């Protein structure tokens, strides 16, 4: 269980996050939704432990800030692409914490090969990461997070660069992690997809949490509409799946 109590993050003279109190369940998928600038990415960085914050975030019983004992994978929305690095090497970086930096075990090499196949990148292992398409880069990032064998995976817009087919392929791969007891926390602009995969949704706006609950509950809530200035419509398909679309008429 990750317990967030009275979390605040200040950058310069701006409060990016304030008064956040939520509990995030283990081995579940929790998705942060909300408009741009709501503080979703900052929240992920705070959960990673790399960002100074006020209040407290405990993972299990330990405070997460600068706690290197945890094994948390982080998939950024805009990665820094190392010039001249090859795909296999890039994915192998995910094993660094397990093998010790500068070492690579045979087990790791086999695992990287496995995960490259799983993410459809096998055969490209010797290409430069900088030559990959947006979607391939995203899959390489996911592959690196998978070989890290984390207890918690943080994903910032994991599907933003992917076509419809690869969105599902990547999200299915991430979902498999739950079976291994991995906690998943992601941000996602596509609320329809978020509702499809995440058990829990946290609605954020202007640095605060408006609502936190099961996907089904949140999707049909007023708070979700409020977060997006009432510019969304929620429809339900025959299968019972909710679909969230923007209202065109209200957008000036």
């Amino acid at each position, binding site marked *: 269980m990750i317990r967030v109590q009275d979390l605040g993050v200040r950058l310069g003279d701006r409060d990016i996050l304030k008064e956040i109190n939520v509990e995030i369940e283990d081995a579940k998928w929790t998705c942060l939704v909300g408009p741009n600038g709501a503080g979703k990415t900052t929240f992920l*960085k705070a959960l*990673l*432990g*790399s960002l100074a914050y006020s209040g407290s975030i405990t993972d299990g019983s330990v405070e997460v800030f*600068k706690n*290197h004992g945890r094994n*948390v*994978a*982080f998939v*950024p929305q*805009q*990665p*820094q692409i*190392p*010039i*001249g*690095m090859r795909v*296999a*090497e890039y994915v*192998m*970086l*995910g094993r*660094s*914490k397990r093998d*010790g*930096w*500068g*070492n*690579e075990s045979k087990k790791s*090499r*086999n695992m*990287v*090969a496995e995960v490259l196949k799983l993410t459809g990148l*096998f055969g490209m*292992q*010797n290409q430069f990461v*900088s030559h990959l398409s947006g979607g391939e880069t995203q899959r390489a990032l996911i592959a690196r997070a998978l070989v*890290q064998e*984390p207890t918690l995976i*943080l994903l910032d817009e994991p599907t933003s660069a992917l076509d419809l087919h690869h969105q599902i392929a990547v999200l299915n791969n991430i979902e498999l992690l739950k079976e291994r007891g991995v906690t998943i926390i992601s941000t996602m602009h596509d609320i329809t997809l978020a509702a499809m995969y995440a058990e829990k949704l946290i609605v954020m706006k202007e640095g605060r949490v408006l609502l936190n609950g099961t996907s089904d509950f949140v999707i049909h809530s007023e708070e979700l509409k409020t977060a997006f200035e009432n510019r969304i419509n929620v429809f339900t398909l025959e299968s019972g799946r909710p679909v969230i679309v923007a209202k065109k008429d209200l957008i000036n």
Partner: protein
Amino acid sequence: MKQENSLSPIWNWRITGLSFGLLFFVSILAVSFGPVSLDFSKILRTLFALPGGLTGQERTLLIDLRLPRVLLGALVGAALATSGAVYQTVFRNPLADPYLLGVAAGAGLGATIALTSSGANLYSLLPIFSFCGAIFAVLTSFFISGKFFAEPNSLLLSGIAVGSFATAVQTYLQQRHSSSLRPVYSWILGELTVANWQVVSRSSIYIMIALVILITVSKQLDGLMLTDEEAYSLGINPNRLRIIAVIAATLATATAVSASGLIGFVGIVVPHLVRGITRRVTNRSLLTIALVGASFLVLADLGARTLLSPAELPIGVITAFVGAPFFLVVLRKKRLVAK
């Protein structure tokens, strides 16, 4: 399935072994050649204290003149190449080099202050002066560029400005103290003629400390090619790692500059050469870069001693002659990649 194992290792350590061999070979070559040629097998016998080695004047020539010079060249080459490679990774800029960051010019200024200060004999404090100058230059570059590591380009630009300023002050000092013009001038052009065991032992302490630190942290440096959050999630403290790496690289550069003057382009040629030939950017190559840098400078010094024999060319002329065109090739390639 055979495909399972078709991932090749990130770094082939046999290359590192080969570069040890290269340095050994080049060093033997360098101590052998000169106005008086020494016999290979006799050199080896002398070095390994076997019977049948060199005697008399030849032995003195080897032990007291050529050997310290080759060793100093190797140390300086290793220091410059390694710190160049480290700066390139830390500042995420393939053109970063001890010279572009103002480090070398700062070290040069510090050393010139030591050489030109009348009265007190500060010559023995030269490494400390140049280290202070180098650290001062790096810090000034950092603060001018505003953000510590966020903007690699502004850091390089401020490094160039700081470097020019330090060079200007240095030239002023040098012209004012015309009595010491000659040693300062020959030192600026870079030369290893000053090599004796005292210089070697003094420099080797600092350079070896710096190299051991750099090669130890080099394993983690690959993580700095990612965003700070990614590096953090892989168990690295990015800012601490950067500070350790920059201080150690600056110590190595400053010591190299104080021992041998301003020898340009080693820090850019050698890392790119090693990464280009092996087609690997991983910092596991850092030991290899150190060894190839050592070999490169030993060879350049051999050229400096023998090309216009009996006159000597400044070694900085040789490295710039090879390095400057190489630098342009890298620049052009980088532009092509950017497209």
